[in-house]
């Protein structure tokens, strides 16, 4: 028993010095956030959505997020349209194809460099502090280890999107 204890305590110190971000861990957070985005798509209404659209497009400049969301949302549909997961670079022409744009912590900088943050008919979701003030509509945050979100229905409306009250009730509504 003593030997086990010595090994356990020994490895604790080593490990405390070298805590790394496990790949699975990041994947889990992104997987859950992809799930939330899927629900935002299901419960949101894009007022100017073209009837001719052949897919629902989820965009992010972060390729590690897109690869997770691609596997999580595989085979899922929004209003009978298949979901397309697209890694985009943040230019106005590129973003026109998106229904939802997710800006991760790692890609915030390129978002901040974008001049015109008003994108008609695109739901803009982020996960960093003050993201709604920086032009977003919805912001993920963590509370007690679980994902929660802030949402600005007014800003969504300006972009031509209405969110169902079912989702608004679960989030923290901010109006500014």
């Amino acid at each position: 028993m003593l030997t086990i204890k010595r090994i356990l305590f020994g490895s604790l110190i080593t490990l405390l010095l070298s805590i790394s971000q496990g790949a699975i861990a990041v994947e889990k957070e992104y997987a859950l956030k992809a799930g939330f985005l899927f629900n935002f798509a299901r419960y949101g209404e894009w007022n100017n959505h073209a009837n001719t659209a052949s897919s629902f497009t989820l965009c992010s400049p972060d390729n590690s997020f897109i690869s997770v969301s691609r596997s999580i949302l595989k085979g899922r549909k929004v209003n009978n349209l298949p979901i397309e997961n697209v890694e985009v670079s943040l230019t106005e022409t590129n973003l026109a194809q998106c229904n939802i744009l997710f800006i991760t912590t790692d890609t915030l900088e390129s978002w901040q460099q974008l001049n015109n943050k008003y994108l008609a008919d695109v739901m803009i979701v982020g996960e960093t502090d003050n993201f709604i003030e920086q032009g977003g509509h919805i912001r993920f945050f963590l509370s007690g280890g679980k994902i929660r979100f802030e949402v600005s229905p007014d800003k969504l409306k300006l972009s031509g999107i209405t969110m169902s009250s079912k989702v608004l009730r679960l989030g923290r509504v901010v109006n500014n």
Partner: protein
Amino acid sequence: MKLSPALLYLFMLISPWVVAEESLSDLDLDLDSLMAMDVQVTSAMKRTQSAFETASSIYVLTKEQITRSGVTSVPEALKMVPGLAVRQLDNNQWAISSRGVASRFSSKLLVMIDGQSLYTPEFAAVYWETLNVPLYDIERIEIIRGQGGLLWGSNATNGVINIITKNSIDTRGLYADVSSGSQLNVDTNLRYGGDIGNNGSFRVYGHVKDGQTSDKGIKMAPADFTEQQSAGVRFDFTPNDQWSGLIQGDITQSTLGQNFNGVVDSSNRNISFTGSLDRTDARIMARLENRISPSANQMLQTSWLKQSGEQTYIQEEFESFDLDYQINFLYQDLQFDWGLNYRYNAISFAQSTFIQSGGGFDNLQQYGTLAQAQYNVIADKLDFIVGVKVDHNDLTGWESQPLARLVWKPQNNQVVWLSVSKSVLVPSLLMFNDNYIIDGQRVEEVSPITTGIPEIDRYYIRTYLNGNNKVKSEKSVSYEMGYRLSDTTWALDLSVYHTDTDNVAVIEIDPNIDQFIPVFTMLQAGQIDAAVQALTTTSINFNLVSNAGLTTEGGDVVLSWQPVDNFTAEVGYSYNTFNYDLVDNTFPAIGYDSTSRQLFTKADIHFFEQHNIFASLRVENSDAYRTDNYTALDITWNWAFQPNWAFAIMGKNLFAGTHLEYGNHGETYTQSTFIDESVTFKITAKF
């Protein structure tokens, strides 16, 4: 118990179901379930990460089961858990345990609200009757049967019940309900929750209950009325994604009627009384959580508990302060949990007519550390877990509780787990410190000679139940094994166990024959009156001694089935045996050799959008409680007749009629009553 290799092979063979998907791809994308999931891959403090992969016998009571079943208290909710012995003494008091005989004052069960322990070291028990947790704001209740609770705390020999309440961000808005029925005058709840700026949220709640007495008593008319008022508050703060905190508190004031026994005069016999118990229970806790990285987190929790109780012959005060720190992290294939804990208990127990405190303890301290490592031997297939908890307490000094476990996933939807663990139960202060006057013994029962003189032979000698500081901690070694299978529409959860316990406290009779010699001398001299007078100075001692062995074994199986979204059914069976190994001249203090069997069925049907029926049927077959076997049906119909309003009718203890659930009166001074069938109506509003 030997885990037979044949049994292992059998488990290996049962694997025709092939689900070769990655676990994250199976993610339930329903918004409610996403909101319930932890982002951390490391387990949060005192919560399980995945019930499916936990290497202990765990059952999770969901918030849906709690609200749809129409239960009105936590102990009532626990009646729905297969493998828990939940026995109602009267309309207020309960005896609850798992893997053993439930007793009101010795349950060996660790009960927590959000990680705050409610264990009373005086009795090794929990005052269920004054435990107020608003049921509509419970996230879930995790129940671990057996000693699986290393990470959860001490004194969890028979199990852990962890009540996890909702984050206040999820309880914003107004909630109100009012119930009334055949046993209940009124039970009403009110809660309001909201945001605090952009970084926090809160809720405040209140609860008032006014309950009637039962219809039928054993010796006396029932007196078990309830008058209870509670108020509480919870704040949650999330300044950023790395830090979050919560503070919560509750105060409950109760006046509960009861019938009880006590020896209060020179008859030396138990006399029955009707009285009431006034209790004030207050608790407050604060927790700070820090997310170091997605695979590492740490938590600091501090809490304070104050309980004061006053009844005719007992005045007690109990305070407890807890400080816990825990860090969990994952490094490559190794998950590591490490924690520190400190507990200070202040206990004051006024001397009374029939209780005397001899040991001079007015406070108890406990401190310790735990470490657990889980190593992933074969990726996604095989995990090996070792852990140890070492702590020090004032009564028995240093104690250590090691464990080793193996979790094997032959397929993604199947888990086989094995566990060997040692656990320690520190004696309660009652066993260590106190002397009780109990129902007297007749001379003819204890004396080797009878005199033929009725005044002498039928005289009741004053009898004491004595705790003493030679009582040792009970040490249990438990071998457990389980198997889980989860298919698209059904799931199976099976566990078996064998536990050997040493140093079990039992009662040794010390008749102290020498003290009777003068009495016999007087008798021989024909001085009968003087002899009777001399008898009044004699006493018999029932002394607690730690020299018995106890073997408990059995198992639980739960099969759940969900063929469609709006229908869930569950069948469970539980079998437990309890056997003492006693030396001569001793008898058990808690429970006696017995076998308990339970059969459960539950059904939850949602229909016509607004309607829900939840039914649970329990067959209790046990010789451990000096009662008849009984079968009870609880059924609740919920009708959400408006988006914000719902109406419910709850029928409880149907079929069972007026029945007795607990008859071990030697273990408690409370006299139980017959438990009635009841019908309750409830209106709920949510805005």
